[in-house]
């Protein structure tokens, strides 16, 4: 399995001396192509910090974060921006779609920022919308879409142009259970097609779509879960 994300003793702290706050203690972790990783833990345990480091939104105070072969800590701002536009896609709980742009235009933004032609960006946006089951809704504005549809547009935007690493921070937080499940099926399909996704969530039913669930506590990885072999379903009637 190709490693797409690697944390090698990566740590993040803020401030110095006795006011120093450590958000993430030195942490080592690898995530491979095809793998869906869920990160669980209470508020303040370092989940979002970990995701920000992988997404190139923040740099480690110590250790290394390697994303698709690139050491994030050593990248210049311009190179980081390119990493975010071409390799890593982000999906948040708050959808952050631009209300004045159609679904298709929202999805095309990362490619247009990356200097692609409008025609090329548009074609890739259509393909991404199709992959999340929204081929026919490209001309709609976000306000005319349901919460679940908006989140699928956000996923299409995160994946557009073939980005392989999807980072999702509570992507199902505002959705009802069936809609949340359809979002999880999309993340699962992305990974089954050779992509990688890291999902931060407090929702166990959604974390359970992952191949591996890691638990953070007070900035430390404390445990890891893998699917149980063949669970017994209800086998006897009362």
């Amino acid at each position: 399995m190709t490693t797409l994300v690697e944390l090698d003793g990566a740590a993040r702290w803020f401030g110095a001396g006795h006011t120093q706050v450590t958000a993430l203690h030195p942490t080592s972790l690898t995530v491979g192509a095809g793998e869906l990783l869920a990160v669980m833990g209470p508020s303040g345990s370092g989940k979002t910090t970990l995701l920000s480091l992988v997404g190139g939104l923040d740099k480690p105070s110590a250790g290394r974060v390697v994303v698709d072969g690139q050491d994030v800590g050593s990248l210049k701002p311009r190179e980081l921006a390119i990493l975010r536009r071409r390799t890593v896609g982000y999906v948040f709980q708050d959808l952050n779609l631009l209300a004045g742009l159609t679904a298709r235009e929202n999805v095309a933004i990362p490619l247009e920022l990356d200097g692609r032609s409008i025609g090329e960006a548009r074609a890739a946006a259509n393909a991404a919308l199709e992959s999340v089951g929204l081929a026919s809704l490209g001309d709609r504005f976000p306000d005319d879409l349901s919460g679940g549809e908006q989140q699928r547009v956000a996923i299409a935007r995160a994946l557009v142009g073939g980005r392989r690493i999807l980072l999702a921070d509570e992507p199902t937080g505002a959705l009802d259970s069936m809609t949340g499940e359809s979002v999880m099926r999309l993340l699962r399909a992305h990974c089954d097609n050779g992509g990688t996704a890291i999902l931060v969530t407090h929702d166990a039913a959604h974390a359970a779509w992952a191949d591996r669930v890691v638990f953070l506590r007070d900035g430390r990885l404390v445990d890891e879960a893998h699917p149980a072999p063949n669970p017994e379903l209800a086998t006897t009637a009362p």
Partner: protein
Amino acid sequence: MSVRYGLLALLDEAPSHGYNLKTAFERRTGGSWAINIGQVYTTIQRLERDGLVESLGSSAGDDERREYRITPAGRAQLATWFENPVVAEAPARDELTIKVLLAVAAGDVDVTALLQRQRRASIEQLQAYTRRKAKADPKRDVAFLILLDALIFRTEAEIRWLDACDARIRSLASAAAAPPTAGSKETDG
């Protein structure tokens, strides 16, 4: 209880015999709720004794061949069952709840570690259910998916309860550690 009403519901659709009832019951309940044929016959005998089903044709035939149909009284009791919610008379005594309560009281048990071991085991169970769900066909396997949803939501509720126990114990510990006037500060992360 549910086997009794399950058989009544099946007989309400069409008369049937024991073995058919067994396979239909298992199919309806998601293909994973096995009942043995002996249980089916005992239940039918009780239903017959109570006048809720009656056997068709000669009573000389063997158990396997004998067909049964629902009576008007059986139909009425089935309707009452569907119309009334299922309310547990008393919360079930649950080993995990008791274990956590005793661990908290014991004082020398690492409750946080106990909760995490349980959380990991429950998530692993949830992952396994979810894998089955991912493979199921949403149109063809409706009964199986509804059964899986029941198991998934029950396990999820257990994990939420573990998280709540954990948070309660942590807030007790931090209240004990902090001076009474200091405000608590938490960063989200």
